[in-house]
């Protein structure tokens, strides 16, 4: 409306209102004249006059009420501790970031607070959030948005208070400040440094993108929004079918690495990829690709298969920039963005350093890009929907199972490991370093994986193929959670669930389609569950599951007795049952099981690698059981057979790494019956040394050829240990040097382990070996320290796995060893404490046990107790009566010990070492019997000097 016209309307309007109602019409006619529109305009306005603005009032008031109510549904306005949430800054899938204000008497502070969205706070999410909060609080870096505080809201939801970073996304900041290429790189390098810092703290960011990399007005780069509550894979909300583009809301797909898109395991390399994309954008002001509007399948294809463009080829670059970027910078960006994570920069620091080299005009590391982006092993086409979902589910954070060759100590570990190894994720490459996050985060992530699986199962119906895949998926998740090296996390309960689910799925799949694959899967599911149950001390259940798997395998085999796969399955079933029995110290029963395995599988090698390796391991098992049974010569014979098989295999394929590893295994297992297993070996140190050297040569050779061969480096420790064992009887001083080396290497390799799977028991045994080899007074204190360290490890393990007899035995024995060493330094009080501690376990173990390991340890322990009592009887600080009583007790203990060693004779199990022990104890007995309890302390030689073989 023209101004004039409006003024007219206004005039007439007000004038009309001044007239009394009956006169208005007349006035209007007069005032408007012929102008119909004018008249209807004013009339309509007049018609709307009159409610004094009540309409508007009400409208505003209603809306205000809504606002207020909505504010209480959202958290805005909520008071959290000293902070008040003002408004939402950002919302991800599950977490919400609010701008918050702290306003009290002294400060007016603005922060950002992240919480879980109201209504989405499931217990597991809460736990995960909390766990990540813990880690993030440890990140203190000038380029990382700081965590200031944290806590829980009244309703139990955790929150994090973060530095409110006021700034612009790095890409925009660079534009606004007109930064040159070099300046942009410098800025970017701070980001790399921050990311690397986080990686060293085992935190992966997972969502590096410009809006998370802000530049403050002062020009400081701040990386914000670390993976708190970020889903690791496209998140499915329960009860909803995923919409085509919905998945993009929860990740920022343009920056996600191929493995993120595929839902694969994430490592620090994923962040390196995103850094690459960021650098691309920073240099060229455009992204390498955009996924907006694409379906998940198309996006995956684009990211995982399409070759990345070179930054210098982006259209619309100025000539000057193109020149600067082409060549080295191109290569750096492309290397960071390599589809294959193992071909990228191994760390953000490497990327940082290469950029520095570029700035200094030095040659860079990045390789010339290959034009071949064929299917790498990480890229797969033709995924069906269900498989994609399964892959999404298998979110495994660089987890590792370490193949522990514990056979030197007790062969049982072999079986434990083997059952896990067959199905486990064994990948010790540089990814070990990238194993992420803390114990709790891993646990939280496992639970997340389970949740996905459960959802998947609900939507998958009855298809046996899917059920099978699911079974495998559950099993894989369970493997990680439940492996003994990971189970310290306290995940075993969850692992149990996973395995039980796996079993359920496998049973279902099998019942619908009892084919080979499903039978095998079912078989494996029983085994896994059984192994874990045993580990957790649920012996009954473990036995049951193994029995079930055995009968399943048996029926399966009977159906086609000549089929090699079925034979193998049944033989392995017997073997695993035997392992269980051996672990449970039922040596004789185990022997039966192993014999059954041989009966099915046969005893001759046939040149087929799989077959022969299985056979080799059967012989190894047999050897172990025989040793425990008390037939060291036979044991040795079996182990020699195993060695022969592996030597044949190695001859066939001399350059095969696997063959070399098998050979190492075999040499390793020679050690036990020769000299390694205390009192159960034949005592041939010379031969042991030969094999130990051979084993060491293999691993040293591997390490020499390829320093990054992690298998070799970790097995180096075993090699050294073998040398130590070989020399322990004849040259203990030299042995102790080897043991020291072994411990050193183990500790070096340990950081590569995912948190929680540190090989503590290996270290404990190493400590004890070293202690045993250190003779003489001058080493007494060190001995005590080593034994104490070992002792606390055993205590932890007993606590963590109360059902496992081994750990209790080790603790019992450890207490006795400590008791002896305290006696050697004349600390009788401490010695008595340890002795008392050991006594607790005596009832658990019987001298009639099938396993000589038990009998042996009892023998040593009784002797130690005898020593303590004897010392009391000789110590003038006790009353005469007390000393007499101690004297009697000493006699009793020594007597018991002597009985133990005679038992060996009775079982025809004597070995040179056992005979030495027997003689020693019998001598002690005689001494005590004939001694007068008035003998003074000074006449008593230290036990060490008297009882151990003379050595240098």
């Amino acid at each position, binding site marked *: 409306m023209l101004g004039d016209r409006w003024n007219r309307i206004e005039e007439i309007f007000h004038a009309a209102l001044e007239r009394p109602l009956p006169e208005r019409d007349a006035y209007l006619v007069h005032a408007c004249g012929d102008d119909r529109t004018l008249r209807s305009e004013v009339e309509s*306005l007049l018609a709307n006059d009159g409610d004094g603005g009540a309409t508007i009032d009400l*409208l505003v008031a209603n*809306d*205000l009420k809504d606002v207020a109510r909505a504010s209480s549904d959202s958290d805005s306005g909520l008071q959290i501790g000293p902070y008040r949430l*003002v408004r939402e800054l950002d919302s991800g899938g599950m977490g919400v970031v609010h701008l918050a204000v702290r*306003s009290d008497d002294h400060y007016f502070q603005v922060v950002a607070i992240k919480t879980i969205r109201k209504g989405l706070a499931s217990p597991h999410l809460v736990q995960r959030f909390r766990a990540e909060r813990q880690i993030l609080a440890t990140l203190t870096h000038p380029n990382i948005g700081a965590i200031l505080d944290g806590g829980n809201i009244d309703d139990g939801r955790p929150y994090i208070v973060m530095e409110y970073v006021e700034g612009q996304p790095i890409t925009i900041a660079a534009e606004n400040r007109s930064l040159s290429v070099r300046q942009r790189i410098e800025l970017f390098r701070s980001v790399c440094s921050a990311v690397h810092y986080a990686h060293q703290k085992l935190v992966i960011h997972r969502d590096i993108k410009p809006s998370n990399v802000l530049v403050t007005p002062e020009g400081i780069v701040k990386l914000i929004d670390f993976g708190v509550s970020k889903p690791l894979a496209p998140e499915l909300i329960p009860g909803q079918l995923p919409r085509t583009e919905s998945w993009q809301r929860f990740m920022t797909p343009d920056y996600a690495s191929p493995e993120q898109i595929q839902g694969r395991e994430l490592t620090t390399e994923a962040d390196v990829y995103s850094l690459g994309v960021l650098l691309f954008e920073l240099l060229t002001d455009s992204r390498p690709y955009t996924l907006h509007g694409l379906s998940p399948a198309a996006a995956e294809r684009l990211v995982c298969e399409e070759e990345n463009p070179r930054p210098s080829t982006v259209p619309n670059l100025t000539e000057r920039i193109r020149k600067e970027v082409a060549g080295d910078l191109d290569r750096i960006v492309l290397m960071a963005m390599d589809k294959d994570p193992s071909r990228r920069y191994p760390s953000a620091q490497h990327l940082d350093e290469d950029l520095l080299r570029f700035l200094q005009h030095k040659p860079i590391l990045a390789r010339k890009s290959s034009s071949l982006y064929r299917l790498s092993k990480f890229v797969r086409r033709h995924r069906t929907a269900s498989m994609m979902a399964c892959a999404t589910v298998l979110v495994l954070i660089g987890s590792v199972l370490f193949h522990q060759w514990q056979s030197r100590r007790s062969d049982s570990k072999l079986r434990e490991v083997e059952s896990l190894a067959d199905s486990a994720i064994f990948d010790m490459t540089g990814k070990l370093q990238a194993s992420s996050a803390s114990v709790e985060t891993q646990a939280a992530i496992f639970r997340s994986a389970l949740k996905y699986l459960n959802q998947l199962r609900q939507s998958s119906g009855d298809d046996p193929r899917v059920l099978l895949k699911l079974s495998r998926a559950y099993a894989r998740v369970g493997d990680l959670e439940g492996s003994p090296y990971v189970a310290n996390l306290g995940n075993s309960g969850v692992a149990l669930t996973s395995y039980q689910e796996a079993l359920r799925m496998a049973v279902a799949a099998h019942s619908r389609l009892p084919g080979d694959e499903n039978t095998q899967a079912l078989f494996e599911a029983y085994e896994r569950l059984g192994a874990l149950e045993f580990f957790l001390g649920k012996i009954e259940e473990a036995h049951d599951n193994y029995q079930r798997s055995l009968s399943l395998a048996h029926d399966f085999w009977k159906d086609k007795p000549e089929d090699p796969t079925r034979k193998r399955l049944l033989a392995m079933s017997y073997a695993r049952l035997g392992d269980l029995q051996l672990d449970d110290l039922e040596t004789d029963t185990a022997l039966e099981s192993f014999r059954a395995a041989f009966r099915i599988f046969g005893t001759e090698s046939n040149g087929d690698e799989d077959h022969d390796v299985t056979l080799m391991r059967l012989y190894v098992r047999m050897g172990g059981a025989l040793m425990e049974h008390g037939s060291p010569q036979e044991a040795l014979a079996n182990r020699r057979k195993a060695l022969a098989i592996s030597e044949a295999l190695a001859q066939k394929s001399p350059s095969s790494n696997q063959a070399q590893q098998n050979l190492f295994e075999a040499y390793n297992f020679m050690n036990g019956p020769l000299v390694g297993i205390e009192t159960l070996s034949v005592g041939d140190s010379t031969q042991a040394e030969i094999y130990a050297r051979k084993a060491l040569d293999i691993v040293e050779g591997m390490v020499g050829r390829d320093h990054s061969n992690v298998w070799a480096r970790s097995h180096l420790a075993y090699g050294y240990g073998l040398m130590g064992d070989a020399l322990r009887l004849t040259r203990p001083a030299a042995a102790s040097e080897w043991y020291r080396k072994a411990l050193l290497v183990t500790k070096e390799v340990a950081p590569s382990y995912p948190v929680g799977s540190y090989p503590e028991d290996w270290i404990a045994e190493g400590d004890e070996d070293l202690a045993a080899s250190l003779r003489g007074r001058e080493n007494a204190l060190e001995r005590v320290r080593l034994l104490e360290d070992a002792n606390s490890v055993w205590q932890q393990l007993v606590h963590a796995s109360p059902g496992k007899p081994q750990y209790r035995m080790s603790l019992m024995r450890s207490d006795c060893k400590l008791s002896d060493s305290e006696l050697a330094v004349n600390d009788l009080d401490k010695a008595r404490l340890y002795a008392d501690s050991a006594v607790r376990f005596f009832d658990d173990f019987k001298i009639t046990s099938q396993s000589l390991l038990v009998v042996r340890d009892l023998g040593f322990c009784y002797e130690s107790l005898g020593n303590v009592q004897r010392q009391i009887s000789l110590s003038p600080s006790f009353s005469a009566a007390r000393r007499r009583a101690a004297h009697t007790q000493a006699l009793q203990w020594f007597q018991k010990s002597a009985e133990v060693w005679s038992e060996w004779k009775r079982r025809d199990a004597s070995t040179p070492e056992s005979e030495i022990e027997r003689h020693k104890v019998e001598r002690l007995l005689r001494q005590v019997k004939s001694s007068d309890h008035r003998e003074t302390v000074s006449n008593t030689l230290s036990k060490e000097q008297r009882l151990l073989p003379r050595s240098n």
Partner: protein
Amino acid sequence: MSGPTPVNVIRKDPGNVTSLLLDWSKGNQSALECLVPIIYEELLRLARARLSRENRQCTLQPTALVHESYLRLADETKLQWQNRAHFYAIAANTMRRVLIDYARKRNAEKRGGGMIITLQTGMDFAQERAPDCLALDEALKRLARVDERKSRAIELKYFGGMTTEEIGSVLGIAVATVGRELRLGQAWLRRELSRAQE
């Protein structure tokens, strides 16, 4: 937790808002920018607090909120009545923004912009048809194109709860004029709103 030096810390003194107001009246435009978020936050907080305290059935008066926020944020002893008027002007506008922000968000959700599409019940439909602050906001904007002063007067009254004197002082017009401005403005808006419904 001890952490790095607190960031974004503005030392608060009772005269913070006050001094900002004074600043602004002296012509410092950026003072206005600082005021708005403080007031925004305060209004929201008060709305929420009010709602929980009072009977949920009764209507909330935005004007009451503005009054209260003024009392809480400003030190009356230091301000002239002109400053107060300015505060209310800003508060009125901020109040309007609060309501618009919310209404936009709410509408976005209803039209399925979010992940979750809920089935609309009959009641929802009815509500959607009723004019809300967005419609009012649109209407006010249209009014502003025709006659800016009236639009501001409405805003000051209905969002800011100002008296005719105060409105007069802010707009620089006589009280009687304020009355007339409001009356026509109201009528115009009402007409617009009912037309929008058709």
